[in-house]
């Protein structure tokens, strides 16, 4: 749908949402939960995929990156051509154990190299020249869910990925803080108001009631469980710890979202990326350990992506500039096809030093929606193959 038609459509859709008995609190049947969970981890800024999953037998790679390439002796070799950045020790062992799938050269036609546009494209699953105001997971929420806590982002504001027409999805740093904010006697009284008003005002009251119900539900569950797994000291780790705790406490939320920024390494990339990947590695490792401990790993899928990869050649500041295709990861205890899911990285497939894609990211999205979250709705626009997850 184009953006204008979409806006028009949204007016209709939003009035159709006006359920008269909005006073009824939401209950668990409002969450489409098939027992499977998705955790999305966004690496904001454009992670350099070539120094993450390194083509360590490739001459082009070393020629194009005389100072910042990872030496063959340093990589954590995972097959005869590709190896991981030395900071990714735990991740490499997950790969060895069959708990990780890597997709190489993921992108879409006419890739955009602006952070903003590229991010929007990944978050809304749009074509490069289309603009949507709903995210790909927001559309899933619209199609399958009714409760605000059907998707939870750990952070202060909600990603476009989760935004949909129904306004579901919640963003918070921790459930206790969320509860504190909404638990004033005034808000509790407001929650009891049996009031309709006009359609739009009614929608606000309904959203408020639902938010309160979800807040209470999350807090009541969350306080019953405390993890004993050690997490490193980083923002991402804290986010993942909260997510693992929510999952461990039995909260029935299908979608979680967390992000980590700083990957825009235009200069002196080596040290920066080393730290970034090390944080990512240890945080993911703690999350996995936690999920295993509570028996939730088999039913959890972790998706790691970035808005674009970086240029094949290094720039003059020992860094890399915005590029195109990149690798995408899936982690989980029950993967259909662990290992490398598609071709190896082919550096000859390039357009003026930008790596071109061989796999459209929307194939991965479609597969997750259909074969993991179990939605039969046409959520991703366009025709994309889906595979077993």
């Amino acid at each position, binding site marked *: 749908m*184009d*953006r*204008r*038609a979409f*806006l028009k459509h*949204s*007016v209709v859709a*939003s*009035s159709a949402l006006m359920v008269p008995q909005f006073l009824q609190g939401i209950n668990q049947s409002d969450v489409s939960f098939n027992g499977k969970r998705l955790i999305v981890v966004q690496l904001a800024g454009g992670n350099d995929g070539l120094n993450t999953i390194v083509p360590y037998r490739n001459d082009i790679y070393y020629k194009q990156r005389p100072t910042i390439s990872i030496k063959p002796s340093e990589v954590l070799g995972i097959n005869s051509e590709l190896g991981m950045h030395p900071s990714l020790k735990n991740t490499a062992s997950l790969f060895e154990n069959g708990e990780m799938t890597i997709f190489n050269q993921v992108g879409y036609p006419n890739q955009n190299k602006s952070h903003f*546009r590229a991010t*929007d494209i990944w978050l809304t699953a749009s074509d490069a020249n289309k*603009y949507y*105001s709903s995210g790909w997971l927001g559309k899933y929420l619209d199609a399958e869910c009714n409760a*605000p806590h059907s998707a939870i982002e750990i952070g*202060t*504001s*909600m990603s*476009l990925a989760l*935004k949909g*027409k129904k*306004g*579901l*999805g*919640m*963003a*918070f740093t921790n459930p206790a803080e969320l509860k*504190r*904010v*909404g638990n*004033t*006697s*005034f*808000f509790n*009284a*407001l929650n009891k*108001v*049996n*009031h*309709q*008003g*006009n*359609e*739009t*005002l009614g*929608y*606000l*009251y309904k*959203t*408020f009631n*639902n*938010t309160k119900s*979800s807040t209470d539900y999350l807090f009541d569950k969350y306080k019953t469980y405390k993890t004993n797994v050690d997490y490193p000291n980083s923002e991402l780790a804290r986010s993942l710890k909260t997510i693992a705790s929510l999952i461990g406490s039995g909260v029935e939320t299908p979608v979680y979202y967390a992000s980590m920024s700083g990957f825009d390494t235009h200069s002196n990339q080596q040290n920066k990326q080393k730290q970034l990947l090390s944080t990512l590695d240890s945080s993911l490792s703690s999350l996995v350990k936690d999920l295993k401990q509570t028996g939730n790993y088999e039913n959890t899928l972790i998706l790691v992506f970035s808005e674009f990869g970086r240029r094949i050649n290094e720039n*003059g*500041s020992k860094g890399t500039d915005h590029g195109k295709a990149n690798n995408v990861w899936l982690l989980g205890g029950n993967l259909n096809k662990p290992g490398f899911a598609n071709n190896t990285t082919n550096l000859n497939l390039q357009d003026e030093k930008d790596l071109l894609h061989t796999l459209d990211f929307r194939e991965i999205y479609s597969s997750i929606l259909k074969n993991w979250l179990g939605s039969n709705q046409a959520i991703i626009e366009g025709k994309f193959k889906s595979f077993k997850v």
Partner: protein
Amino acid sequence: MELKEYCHLLKRATIAVKPEQLNKLPSNRKSALDNIFKKASTVKPLNIEHQKWNNVVYKDLSAQQRKQLNKYNREKLIEYNKAWFARMCDEADNLRERMVLFWANHFVVMSKSIAPAESFNNSLRNHALGNFKELTIAVAKEAAMIQYLDNNKNKKQAPNENFARELMELFTLGRDVLYTEKDIKEAAKAFTGWRSNREGDFIFAQRQHDDSEKSFLGKQGNFKGEDIIDIILENKECAHFICKEVYREFVNENINTRHVNELTDVFYQTYDIEKLMRYLFMQDWFYDEVNMANKVKSPIELLVSIHQLFPFEMENEKQFLYFQRSLGQILLYPPNVAGWPGGLNWIDSNTLMLRLRLPSLIVNKGMIDTQASEEQVSMMQKRKVNNKLKINVDESQLSALKKMDTIKLEILLFGKTPHAEVKALFQDKNQKERIVKMLSVPDFQMC
């Protein structure tokens, strides 16, 4: 004029209402509108101090210099964001400023530099109530537009269709109305050579202009950009498209075809925006119950409406931007060329909770109940929540609000008398608390 109708008019024709504006009611609609249009008749440009870039060639700058320049521009854009907000607060009763906000979400641009951003904003202000054709030509020649929609790259040898496409799809006709892909290609040719410099000046580069004959919307000629705009406006579909947008913004998100057709007939005659707006605000249907208090305030309208009651200043600009971001609308940073979708799109669990808490955060250090439980108070103190936000609030209007007749106060805040159950929420003896609670119910989110 009746209080409820007058307040509805002010809320729609301006950005927000101050209590004292309701002290004296105008005798009739015409006199109310005469006042509103008189106030809007002067144009006060919005400028901040910034450097000139006449001699700066971006390509010649070192990486370090570029970085500095980008940083300078980012900071200046934030300064301009604040200045624009301050302008809207100072001139909340000014229809011209209301129109600037509207047009900025119609002719959408995002500029990375201050000079083009400022120039564009003032261009909207100049033409906000003028002639739509002049407005369209003016924004098409703005550097911010030329840069944002790639017209600098639109050359005779290598046409770029970005601007031509959006001109028709988003600015004048609506998607796939009248025009075809071929028309876009032909229109793009007519706009070749429309360029800008870093200072924000328009340049017509004759050598890059394709002066061959073009065929556009059924007409043939040696068209230039202006001709294309002319031809588009000759079609009534253009007037209809703009009137639909105006109706959504100023009357109701749900279109009433009869009303929009009426507006179209008026607008198509001359494309005079002032005449259109005056006609709209004069109509009986504008004052129908179904059109009152039925719109969700945009985040900026919400902030300005609180400001009219409790003028506030945020010391820390990061906090001010945080509010804009968390509410979903950062001035000068639209999400994309289609602008903010608005309406119920503003509302999700997070934005709604923040919206409901916003008045108390600004006015009352985050407390809605002054008699909050001791546990809550100590928790708030422990977390220093109150101290984190640095907001200075002017409470001088509080006494006026306290003294205001209840019905009048309700009309001011909600546009209508709220439901009895909602009213029961703010029966406090403590008058300040009563008012903070009134601002914290969803009804205050409407305009």
